[in-house]
């Protein structure tokens, strides 16, 4: 954990707080993209090039833009939200505490990973990642592709203009 990672982590946390607490939905979305970018930078710092770059490509380039479009097309970018404090905070806090408990327990139970430079272990190359994805885990990949295609087709079906009602029914 060096200085750069700490700075990036603080940035990610600040953006995450902004994404939750800001009152303007578009500001929240922009903060969320700050979180995605910060996470990508942390991945790059940890020598995980592929994950970091795919994070930017998918989350900032696709998911973030989709989010922004959804905000603009539904409630309008300038729409204000409900008041900041609300009774649902209690439920949220409970769920967050439970999740934190589970995660802390899981982290404590996991053996600490060996430092990458201590053992002199080679980082996986891009070719190895590709072979793994396209050979050993190819069925999972194909299944995900099928799922995404089905979702895209479903979206198109939903967005298709409905055929005008037939004249016999009117009569």
């Amino acid at each position, binding site marked *: 954990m060096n200085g750069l990672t700490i700075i990036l982590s603080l940035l990610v946390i600040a953006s995450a707080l902004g994404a939750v607490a800001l009152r303007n939905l578009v500001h929240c979305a*922009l903060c969320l993209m700050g979180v995605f970018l910060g996470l990508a930078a942390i991945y790059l710092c940890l020598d995980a*090039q592929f994950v970091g770059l795919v994070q*930017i490509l998918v989350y*900032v*380039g696709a998911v973030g833009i989709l989010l*922004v*479009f959804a905000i*603009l097309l539904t409630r309008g970018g300038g729409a204000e939200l409900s008041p900041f404090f609300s009774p649902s905070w209690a439920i949220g806090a409970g769920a967050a505490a439970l999740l934190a408990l589970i995660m802390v327990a899981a982290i404590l139970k996991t053996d600490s990973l060996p430092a990458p430079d201590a053992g002199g272990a080679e980082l996986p190359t891009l070719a190895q990642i590709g072979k793994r994805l396209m050979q050993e885990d190819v069925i999972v990949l194909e299944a995900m592709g099928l799922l995404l295609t089905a979702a895209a087709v479903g979206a198109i079906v939903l967005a298709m203009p409905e055929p005008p009602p037939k004249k016999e029914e009117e009569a």
Partner: protein
Amino acid sequence: MMDWIREFLGMLWKTVSDQPDPKAAFLPLIPEEWRSETSVLLSIAPLMMIFPALFALTTVVERKGLGRIQNRLGPNRVGPAGFLQFAADGLKTLTKEDIVPRAADQLVHFLAPLALVVPVFLTFSVLPFGRHLVPLDLESGLLFFFAIGAATELSVFMAGWASRNKYSLLGALRAVAQMVSYEIPLILSALTVVMATGTLSLPQIVDAQAAGNGEWLARWHVFTPWGFFGFALFLVAACAEANRAPFDLPEGESEIIAGYYLEYSGFKFALFFLGEYLGLFAACGLGITLFLGGWHAPLPILERWIPSYAWFFAKLAALIGLFIWVRGTLPRVRMDQLMNLAWKFMLPLALVNLLAVALWHFLPNPLARWAASSILLAGAYVGLGRALMPPSRIGKRVYRYAPQDSR
């Protein structure tokens, strides 16, 4: 001090004369703790100088060229034959008042031009400009290029939304929709090269296009059927990604004034202008790297006398000239034509091109693979073009008002 100057000049000479590792003799003079920072700075500084200078030159050449195409003179007042126009323009934008609308979202409005220029400069860091001129040799350089390039869509949206102007927002939505649509054919056409070479590293892709032993012609990817097709798709998609004519609907000055940078003035406007042109240069540079052999000369003999980076920049100049020519020639497309072209024509063709490159890869006989992939691609092109042609509504010409005998 004399050592420093001598080694610095030596480094410049090594760069210009295309020798390996130009920084090797200069860096040891720097104190140990500053060495890596200096190395980074030495790699970045030329990029920050050359490409903005190229941008300045391009604005003049483009205005002169467009003038020539439209049968007028173009800028001819500042400097010899008007070639110092860029200096006048630069000074003008620097001294103009920076106006921010009162209703605008101040912070986002301020950040948007930076969010465009910074990623665009980052994309240059992975391009191999010459035999020994690779600022950053990433294993996944191509992925880096597209990932960083995708971040520019965010800036366009920020600019359009933060201006609180209907035209800005319309322009931003048009731009984002267009960039998202054309990113898919762009990436798929680049993917063909990855399939053929088996690497995402841009220097390795350039190496794969070098001429083999005793061959007189380089193995540029554009010389193969799939490469030619991929290059054409890549150029069209890159043109649309850069929001250039004939795909300049996001600006559309006759409909939405200037689109997403309508509310920007002074140097912020210049930054948008710079970012747009640098994005075009980066896309051209990637196209050169992927399809036009990078810094390789078409004939290997020529590489002996002409340095490698000269080939890269000559190809870049040719592509920029092509884009200026296209801008002066083609009218702007309509929104539905734009979307139909991306989703119904270019996307299927890019997918067929992937099939063609797979055929090329697996067929052993050179004649068979040329024939198979050419037939596949030509069939797809003609078939798809015919199928998408709107049914002809041209009937017999009727003269309703003209007297019958005056035909």
